[in-house]
């Protein structure tokens, strides 16, 4: 089955029965079927680009971190020449983990089982007792190295894929690059990962979190109601649905399944609501209300690193939340603090599948490398308070996803569908300078449906 074109499950079900393109519905079964899961690992996680970390984690030769690509464990290491390599952490001899540390520094990784040794770039050095040639005589040493993934560094972020001949990283980003650049490539020194990621397990299928990351703005109004009850977003608890804070803006998306929500901060946060950009220059606007993570002294760098259109957008209606297909959430938000300050919070999550019924939530927290130490400190605290393990926003998501997952098993429930039928359609807002598909106004289901269309495309491709 697995090698015929398209996707047909063992029981004869086709992907078009699971994903009803005409009706914009997805069968709940997709969220727990083990056969589908295995195909996802082969057709998505072994094929597309995956986020593994940030180069500021491994500054020196020999530095390494251990990460996951789907369910494959890898070593992300910097070699003597400063180049970063991603090697499958499976010993070519008998399959032991060559590297058992989550992070560290080593110019030779020696497997504890029989002692085979490998360089940071995966090259096989040799087996103990050299004269006995315990690596055998059937394969040359050059074929006994750790399997290498293809690596691309974007804005300091380390991406890798097993798809050696596949699309380039820029092809993978597509039209979304214009928008992601505004977050990741806007300053001279770029971002800095503030510490090793938070890691925790969610008892749910990875797609339940990932389809949400494709810019599900609407759930904020109800699931994250407590944010608004807090009052920091304006209005009162009663008026939440009338004000609908944060619901209006421009959702942008591209065919590769990525998306971002561009929001005018002033519309979202009470504290900024007295801000008016009337007749202000881009630079003035940036100083009045710097985008999340940017401090005044960094503003000149924006002009240097971004196009005029990009800077203007960042100044006016910056991208704040969104996702990168298949499993990355982007959270670059204004985060008002209890002390009144607001340096924003910058976080990226990866949702790494661990079987059809669990995924690991990996939360990377960033700041601009050249930001003042105190700002970094504040932003770290903001990001921890809002996102990840104890984050008051994502606590509610993390409790909701498993309940949805438990709802996908029943004989009747599994035949129900997820619906993406509130669509605004691709409309270019007047004077909009960015590429890609744009969905202005109230946040709808378009971007999430684009995520599923790309899922459908990849899952239908056996090669």
């Amino acid at each position, binding site marked *: 089955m697995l090698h015929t074109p398209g996707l047909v499950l063992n029981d004869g079900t086709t992907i078009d029965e699971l994903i009803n393109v005409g009706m914009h519905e997805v069968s709940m079964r997709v969220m727990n079927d083990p056969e589908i899961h295995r195909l996802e690992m082969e057709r998505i996680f072994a094929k597309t680009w995956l986020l593994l970390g940030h180069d500021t984690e491994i500054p020196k030769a020999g*530095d390494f971190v251990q990460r996951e690509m789907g369910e494959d464990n890898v070593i992300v290491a910097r070699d003597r020449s400063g180049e970063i390599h991603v090697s499958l952490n499976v010993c070519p001899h008998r399959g032991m983990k060559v590297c058992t*540390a989550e992070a*560290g520094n080593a110019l030779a990784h020696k497997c504890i089982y029989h002692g085979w040794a490998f360089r940071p770039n995966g090259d096989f050095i040799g087996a103990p007792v050299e004269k006995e040639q315990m690596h055998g005589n059937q394969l040359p040493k050059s074929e006994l190295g750790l399997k290498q993934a293809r690596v691309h560094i974007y804005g300091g972020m380390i991406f890798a894929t097993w798809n050696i001949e596949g699309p380039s990283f820029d092809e993978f980003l597509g039209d979304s690059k214009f928008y992601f650049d505004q977050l990741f490539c806007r300053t001279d020194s770029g971002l800095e990962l*503030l510490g090793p990621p938070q890691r*925790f397990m969610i008892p749910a299928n990875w797609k339940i979190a990932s389809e949400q990351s494709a810019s599900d703005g609407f759930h904020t109004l109800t699931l994250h109601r407590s944010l608004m009850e*807090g009052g920091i977003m304006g209005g009162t608890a009663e008026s939440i649905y009338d004000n609908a804070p944060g619901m209006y803006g421009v959702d942008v998306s591209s065919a590769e399944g990525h998306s971002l929500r561009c929001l005018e901060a002033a519309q979202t946060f009470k504290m900024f609501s007295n801000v008016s950009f009337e007749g202000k220059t881009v630079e003035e606007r940036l100083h009045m209300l710097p985008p999340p993570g940017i401090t005044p002294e960094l503003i000149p760098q924006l002009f240097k690193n971004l196009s005029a259109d990009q800077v203007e957008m960042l100044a006016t209606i910056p991208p704040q939340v969104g996702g990168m297909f298949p499993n990355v959430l982007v959270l670059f938000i204004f985060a008002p603090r209890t002390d009144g300050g607001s340096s924003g919070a910058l976080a990226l999550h990866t949702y790494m599948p661990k079987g059809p019924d669990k995924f690991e939530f990996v939360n990377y*927290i960033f700041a601009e490398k050249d930001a003042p130490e105190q700002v970094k400190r504040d932003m770290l605290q903001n990001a921890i308070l809002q996102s990840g393990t104890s984050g008051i926003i994502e606590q*509610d998501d993390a409790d909701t996803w498993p309940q949805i997952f438990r709802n996908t098993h029943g004989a009747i429930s599994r035949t129900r569908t997820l619906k993406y039928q509130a669509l605004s359609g691709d409309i270019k807002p007047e004077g909009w300078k960015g590429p890609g598909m744009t969905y202005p106004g109230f946040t709808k289901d378009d971007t999430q449906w684009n995520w599923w269309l790309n899922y459908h495309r990849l899952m239908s491709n056996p090669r």
Partner: protein
Amino acid sequence: MIDRSTAAVDKSAVLRGLVSKTRVPLGSEVYNRILETLYDEASALDERRFDDWVAMLATDLVYTAPIRLTRTGPNRDRDIMRTMMHFDDTYDTILMRTGRLSKSAWAEDPPSRTRRFITNVRVGETENADEYEVVSYFQMARSRGGDPVNEGTTAERRDIWRHVAGAYKLARREIIFDQATLSMSNLAVFI
């Protein structure tokens, strides 16, 4: 971020819980009152009497939970990474959290049924006569909805409790979780 690659080898104090060299003896009056306080704190949290709990906190509270990192060789015991936290809170942010729990905090509505087991309590004096270093072992069982499988966590808590007007208030808590990857799907509950 901290450059782990050059972390000097240093076994001492890395994992050590109780730092104080002057021990408050188990069974002494101070020890007993503090242990009683830890039990009362656990019951306040298990019974979701958050106001009672907040009343036990000092307004200069620092409440943190560094992550753990799996390391090998000479640095294998230096595995508490304070560059990243699961909790990084102050009295104000704790108030925001407890305030939220009285509103639409779906993560805890319906509430978890929790049980916080406190054992292995050790107490030491500090340079401040009215402050005590208190190390306790912590285990939580957490039951949600109709799920017969509990979530849970274990940790060491390194506290500073301050004697104020006949009662003890929590001035500092560092939570040392025992897992590098937490099995709890969220930390909507206090440790």
